[in-house]
């Protein structure tokens, strides 16, 4: 039986729902030495900012046992100009959708980086990392505030015809409200979740394990949290959703798709098993075949929540 794995995120069509998460796949081509990237639904490049950023003080990462990892990379990246000159050209013939993730330290910076990228060919959509600290708001993430989120997305809507995918932070009381703000401002889809704030301490030295004290928690332990956020967002908006958080198997991906994700992103698992994305694609196909589901898209949001 042939299974149609293609899904749509608004006007963006993906040949399958498996994407690689920003910050875990470099500038998109590093893993090309290990496998044929054209098999992916798409790649999402690391967050690009207006100016180059060296990143945060080291140490920047800490492994949280078998649960995942903490990171405080600090959006280290080459900046939008070097990205356009040096990195974007290589993505042109990837054979998979290319999504550029962007961020700023101010609302205007979000707009500017997209303005610079918009005229460039070679990519298909923007993912908006709204989890960055807002320097004007005591460093609270833009994405934890409906007004700031709406302002960013509305401004971007005026500046690009490409699909806009705000990426939501889980570190909020009511993620559904942030999602509604994005929908109202013209977003085409939403992705979630970014990392959860976390921390670890070395009791020998009494110092934090990462230099910035707290960082972003990612990996397998996040899955229940991310699924619950997805479920909440799904109840609030009708936009297509991309599920992210601890996905490292086809079963994980299916939990998200059944809960309501049209696509998924694989993050930390890329570091561990670079080809896991391909196994997930195969696993989704196999699941549908076994159940005679002709179109994977028919699975999206089929969670049965009745209590008998």
């Amino acid at each position, binding site marked *: 039986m042939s299974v149609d794995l293609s899904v749509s995120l608004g006007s963006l069509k993906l040949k399958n729902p498996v994407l690689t998460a920003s*910050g*875990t*796949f*470099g500038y998109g081509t*590093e*893993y090309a*030495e*290990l496998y044929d990237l054209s098999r992916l639904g798409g790649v999402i490049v*690391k967050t690009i900012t207006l100016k*180059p*950023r*060296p*990143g945060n*003080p*080291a*140490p*920047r*990462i*800490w*492994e*949280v*046992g*078998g*649960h*995942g*990892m903490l*990171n405080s*990379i600090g959006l*280290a990246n080459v900046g939008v100009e070097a990205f356009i000159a040096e990195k974007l050209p290589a993505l042109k013939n990837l054979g998979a959708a290319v999504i550029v993730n962007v961020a700023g330290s101010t609302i205007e910076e979000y707009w500017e980086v997209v303005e610079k990228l918009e005229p460039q060919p070679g990519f298909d959509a923007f993912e908006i990392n709204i989890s960055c600290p807002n320097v004007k708001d005591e460093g609270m993430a833009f994405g934890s505030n409906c007004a700031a989120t709406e302002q960013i997305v509305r401004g971007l809507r005026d500046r690009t015809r490409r699909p806009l995918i705000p990426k939501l932070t889980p570190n909020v009381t009511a993620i559904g409200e942030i999602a509604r703000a994005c929908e109202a401002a013209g977003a085409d889809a939403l992705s979630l979740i970014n990392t959860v704030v976390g921390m670890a301490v*070395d009791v020998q*030295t009494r*110092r934090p*394990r990462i*230099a910035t004290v707290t960082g972003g928690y990612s*990996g*397998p332990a996040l899955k229940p949290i991310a699924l619950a956020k997805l479920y909440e967002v799904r109840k609030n908006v009708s936009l297509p959703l991309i599920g992210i958080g601890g996905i490292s198997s086809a079963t994980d991906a299916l939990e998200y798709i059944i809960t309501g994700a049209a696509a998924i992103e694989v993050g*930390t698992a*890329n*570091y*561990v*098993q*670079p*080809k896991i994305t391909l196994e997930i694609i195969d696993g989704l196909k196999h699941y549908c075949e076994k159940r005679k589901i002709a179109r994977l898209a028919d699975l999206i949001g089929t969670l049965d929540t009745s209590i008998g």
Partner: protein
Amino acid sequence: MIQECGALRRKEVIHPEIFDLWLECPEVAHQSHAGQYLHLLIKGATGVTLRRPLSIAGIEGGLIRLLVRIVGEGTSALAAVPVGTIMDVIGPLGIPFDYSKVSQALLVGGGIGGAPLLFLQDELIGKSIPTDYFLGAKTQDEYPLDPEEVERRSIFAATDDGTFGSAGFVSLQVNQWLQHHDHAGVRVYSCGPLLMMREVDRICRLYDLPHQASLENRMGCGIGVCQGCAVRVNDGKGDPRGGYRLVCKDGPVFDAMEIEWAVLGESYR
């Protein structure tokens, strides 16, 4: 860089906490150079999420030698992997040691840091470059090689407490060597504890000798995409990379002149 699955062919215990592994990964072996490492998946280990970086300690046909010290859950689990198990490896990774235009090599290893220098010694001997290898450890029980191999490789062994080889820090031995030999074409290669490498570097700067040091750090991806293994190399002024280098990709082998040991220390916790 390739990903290869190959069998664990041999395992030898050197001390209860140090062991030798031989993996059959011919494709990776074929591409490997001294100073490079593998990023190894330890399947089914509790308390482990990420791969573990391990230096290539030698190549024998299609076999890759690893010399491993048990320090935590990952390395404990690795020590328990039965011979015959198929292991998933990404490698070879990182920048190898450079020995172009070297007429005499001094290798200075501390503890398990001796691993990549074994491979370097093999390569240098292959190139007929005169090589002296100083390998120290705290004490006999932590010495990373068995005496027979030390003998066979003509390694100058030392332990801090004198329980094996000569007594005292290897850096002292290096200093002595330099006092009694010609320095023309000498290049120094070090791998081991930070304080040891720093002391070796002090000596190298004194004698104005080129020195390559192999650094370690916690690693996420191992291939330069996560930016997690960054270490500070100087104050960052005017450095387009803000004074950060990736151990996994810009290293692990660095020209010691690039390194400011005092600031580097902060990246290691």
